[in-house]
């Protein structure tokens, strides 16, 4: 097999080629296996075994002519081995294994080497996979890890790197998640109609968590992890194709596109954070904005009004449409935050409303809102509240208080680049 790209020679290039196939195909491979075995944890195990075999075999012998067929056939053989082993212990598997063995020895007609690759079922398989990876019996961390691994085709190493946790932690989360699904007897299927909307909400919130971690890293050196946010965008685009009738899925994609559009302007040459007011808006990705606005249009076309993601997307679109901070429609943003606070109450939304109010009406009224929030104790321990309070005090000319608040915010902040911004602001007050 000739080398088709000029990457590092040998094993590394082969590994990356396998990984590329896996990113594209993992959801469909695991989905088809899960439908066929009716056992999602087993499907994930054998798919990973096939991937591990590919990583060794393809770098030694070159990639097979039909990589997807190879992966499916290998995973299928592993599954049959498992069925046979279990059949010695359990009669139910004996029947399954007997049926499979017949299939195995049948003449090699089309399809017998591979799993039934039914194009009409693939969509449902991938969707069912998203639903099971985001199942409510799993912990939030497990949902994120399982979704990135099975639907996104990321390795445990990539997930660990993205979330700044040790690789064994990710592996343990995935193992535990699969055990939980087995123990709870969660079937591999689309949720019944009466649960569907709620379960879809679960899927959307997992994608939101992945994107948010990529767009505002809660810890570490880097402010943005665009590659992680991009995974969420990619998964959400896939989801929108699968459930085109769901307005909130479009709304979430709109939010992602409009937020990601600002990534190029959000960090300076050395990765330092650049605040919205200082961003060079010419760096915003106009095609992402256009895609986001189109998705927001789809969300509105549902005719049932915007939900939490749609309202956030609408706020992001106000920023995207504005040539400068001063020319932003802050009044509309205040209204959208008020609406968001009603459908999805959160102290962070309140805080953002205060910031918008400060821009629309001035810092005085906003400070009163922030003080109420501080008194409620709902954001204690977060750097966000003293950060905003410090800003507002500075704008009111209460310099000494402002500096103390900004310094407090810096002490509480876990992200290095954000902390630097806070200290810079405090120092600028003299």
């Amino acid at each position, binding site marked *: 097999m000739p080398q*088709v*790209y000029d*990457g590092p020679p040998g094993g590394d290039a082969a590994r*990356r*080629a396998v*990984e*590329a*196939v896996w*990113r*594209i195909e993992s959801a469909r491979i695991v989905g088809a296996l899960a439908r066929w075995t009716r056992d999602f944890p087993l499907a994930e195990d054998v798919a990973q075994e096939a991937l591990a075999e590919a990583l060794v075999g393809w770098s030694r012998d070159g990639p097979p002519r039909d990589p997807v067929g190879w992966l499916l056939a290998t995973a299928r053989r592993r599954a049959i081995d498992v069925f046979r082993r279990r059949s010695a212990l359990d009669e139910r598997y004996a029947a399954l294994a007997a049926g499979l063995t017949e299939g195995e020895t049948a003449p090699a007609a089309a399809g017998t080497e591979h799993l039934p690759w039914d194009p009409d079922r693939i969509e449902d398989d991938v969707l069912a996979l998203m639903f099971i990876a985001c199942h409510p019996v799993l912990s939030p961390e497990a949902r994120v890890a399982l979704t990135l691994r099975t639907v996104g085709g990321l390795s445990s190493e990539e997930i660990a790197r993205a979330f700044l946790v040790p690789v064994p932690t990710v592996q343990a989360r995935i193992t535990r998640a699969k055990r939980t699904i087995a123990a709870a007897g969660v079937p591999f299927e689309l949720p019944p109609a009466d649960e569907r909307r709620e379960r879809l909400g679960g899927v959307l919130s997992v994608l939101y968590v992945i994107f948010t971690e990529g767009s505002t890293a809660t810890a570490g050196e880097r402010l943005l992890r*665009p*590659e992680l946010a*991009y995974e969420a*965008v*990619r*998964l*959400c*685009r*896939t989801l929108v*194709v*699968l459930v085109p009738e769901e307005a909130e899925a479009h709304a979430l994609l709109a939010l992602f596109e409009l937020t990601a559009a600002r990534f*190029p302007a959000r960090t300076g040459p050395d990765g330092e954070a650049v605040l919205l007011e200082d961003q060079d*808006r*010419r*760096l*915003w990705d*106009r*095609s992402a*904005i*256009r895609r986001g606005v189109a998705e927001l249009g789809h969300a509105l076309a549902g005719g049932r009004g915007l939900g939490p993601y749609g309202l956030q997307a609408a706020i992001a679109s106000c920023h995207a449409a504005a040539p400068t901070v001063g020319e932003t429609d802050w009044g509309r943003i205040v209204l959208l935050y008020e609406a968001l606070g009603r459908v999805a109450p959160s102290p962070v939304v309140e805080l953002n409303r205060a910031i918008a109010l400060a821009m629309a009406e001035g810092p005085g009224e906003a400070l009163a809102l922030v003080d109420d929030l501080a008194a409620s104790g709902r954001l204690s321990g977060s750097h966000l509240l003293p950060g905003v309070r410090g800003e507002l005090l500075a704008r009111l000319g209460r310099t000494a208080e402002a500096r103390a608040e900004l310094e407090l915010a810096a002490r509480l902040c876990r992200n290095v680049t954000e902390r630097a911004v806070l200290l810079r602001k405090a120092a600028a007050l003299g």
Partner: protein
Amino acid sequence: MPKYMLIMRGTDETNAKMADASFDEMLETVGRFNEELIRAGVLVAAEGLEDPSQGVVIEFGGETPVVTDGPYGETKELFGGFYLIDVASKEEAVEWGKRLPAFPGSKCEVRRVPGIDEFPQDNEWIVRERAWRERTGQL
């Protein structure tokens, strides 16, 4: 994320085969591939070109450019169209390229498309181009 262009490069022979093939079948084959790209969330743009017999080649050799009507005499490989995709790595772009529906004998070239961010931002012409991109919502 990195953008890559998959450039379809046919030859006179593959173009002739394509002209002979059933149009409906071709629409379906290409349509299925496009659908795959859409479902995977990676498609940014795609265009196919009209038959080269309708095109011209402009050659810069002597003092004035020479215009030749298609199919261009000596030219062995003909640009037939492109896909612009948004993927995580070059390997992923290559993997999609390998899946392009193509007649034997044709080629697909995979090239990264540098973003405008990679050009000197204080250059007057880059500034102007940015302004145009901003105004028109271009890539």
